[in-house]
């Protein structure tokens, strides 16, 4: 474990040095992050221009939810998104061999080798929005609230990673598509809003099959003090199950990987 942490730090350092070559990008990235979250808030404003509840959530509640969403999205863009096209490229060209022969776990390497640390700005902005939403609501979360929030947030990260990894692993078969990440984005967009907003079978799917509801709604609800231990535990359990599935799927894909002839 300690070894992998060291390797991760080394990845981070390498990418950091690489990014420092392009220091002028900082301003652009800062602007785009602020722009992104500003637009998201504006969208919420437009909805609340016509109503005062969204799926049973007030304006401040939805802001907290949006903060959680933005934070998680920041993590995805930081650690996961940059690696997707690279894996496709490796599989297509057969250069995955070089990675598989390295003395590190292949799944770990392909999912974290490239990091775009500018996107950590989104994480910070998301956290800021959470605080602002709570202030707007005049709600001070208790220590237990925060603890449950941290647990559910960690489960969400693991869940996201697993779903993302499963999608990425399909690249062993569908190598013609340049970028699969928009499939994930389509699904993840549904997590932007309260789950109570969806009806019928869509809601069932988003709760149990593709747990968008769990990913953003649970952490937001925990911070707002509306958690219960059972659902938090289920979220944790779900995360472990999905991680296991992703791992199995990766192993399965590797078995069918035949490498490109050289």
């Amino acid at each position: 474990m300690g070894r992998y942490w060291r390797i991760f730090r080394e990845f981070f350092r390498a990418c950091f040095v690489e990014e420092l070559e392009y220091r002028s990008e900082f301003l652009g990235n800062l602007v785009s992050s602020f722009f992104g979250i500003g637009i998201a808030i504006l969208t919420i404003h437009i909805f609340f221009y016509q109503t005062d509840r969204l799926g049973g959530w007030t304006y401040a509640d939805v802001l907290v939810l949006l903060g959680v969403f933005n934070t998680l999205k920041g993590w995805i863009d930081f650690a996961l998104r940059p690696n997707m096209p690279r894996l496709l490229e490796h599989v297509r060209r057969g250069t995955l061999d070089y990675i598989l022969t390295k003395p590190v776990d292949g799944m770990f390497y392909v999912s974290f080798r490239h990091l775009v640390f500018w996107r950590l700005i989104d994480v910070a902005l998301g956290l800021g929005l959470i605080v602002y939403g709570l202030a707007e609501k005049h709600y001070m979360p208790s220590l237990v609230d925060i603890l449950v929030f941290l647990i559910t947030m960690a489960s969400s990260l693991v869940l996201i990673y697993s779903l993302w990894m499963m999608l990425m692993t399909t690249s062993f078969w569908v190598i013609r598509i340049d970028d699969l990440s928009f499939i994930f984005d389509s699904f993840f967009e549904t997590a932007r809003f309260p789950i109570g907003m969806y009806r019928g079978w869509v809601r069932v799917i988003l709760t149990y099959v593709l747990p968008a509801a769990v990913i953003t709604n649970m952490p937001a609800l925990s911070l707002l003090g509306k958690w219960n231990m059972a659902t938090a535990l289920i979220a944790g359990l779900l995360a472990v199950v999905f991680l296991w599935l992703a791992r199995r799927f990766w192993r399965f894909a590797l078995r069918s990987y035949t490498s490109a002839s050289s």
Partner: protein
Amino acid sequence: MVRKYAALLRMKYMEMLAYRLATIVWMTGAITQPLITMAVWINIDPSQSDAFFFYFMAVIFVERMTSAWDVWELDREIREGTFSNYIIRPLHPIHWAIAENVVYKLLFLVILIPMWAGAALFVPALRVEISMSQLLLFLAAVLMGALLRFLLSYTCGLLGFWITKVAAIYSVLEVISLFLSGRIAPLSMLPPLLQQWSIFLPFRYMIGFPIDLISQAANGHEVRQGFMIASVWAVIFIMMLQWIWKAGLKKNQAVGG
């Protein structure tokens, strides 16, 4: 010119068939955002469910018919230097892009119209009762929308001669258009200030305006005014495109070999 276009269209058609899976995935990719937005609006005002359903289905249709991807292509080609292959040919590179647009959008049309008709048999909310002339007006508006989006996207792409981040600039425009084109909400649901802006900016005419025509939300005066403003924008875009193209060629230093 006709023969050249016939050849171009055939070539692009072959290309599309070669990437069937990618085409299909790509075609279905853009539908979640409108569907989610629709869920939000139906949640806000359940009594208008049918109207919202019709509106956002129309958004998906018009969005597909007018979508423009040229900026990403140009951005990549100019940066990697492969754009030079097109510059040295005796035909303006824009014709390749136009042929590609025609082929893909005809395919979308051929697939989407029967889907809509089939769905309308079962879902009354999707049925439209309009006269032939209104239908023609709608199609003209869609064509106008496609033209505007294509011109904007191509012009932005040509900026790649000067800057490397044109895709980012275009995304900003796309996000602005999200609000002002009617994708986040029917324009009548927006705050009055944004509504006013949307009339004079080009974005509304890319998506919202055709939908207003087919749902008969616009009266005769608004229709004339709409087409006029859209045409003015089309002329502005064409002039910008020509100017940037000329200036860009002078600036161009083919990257790579």
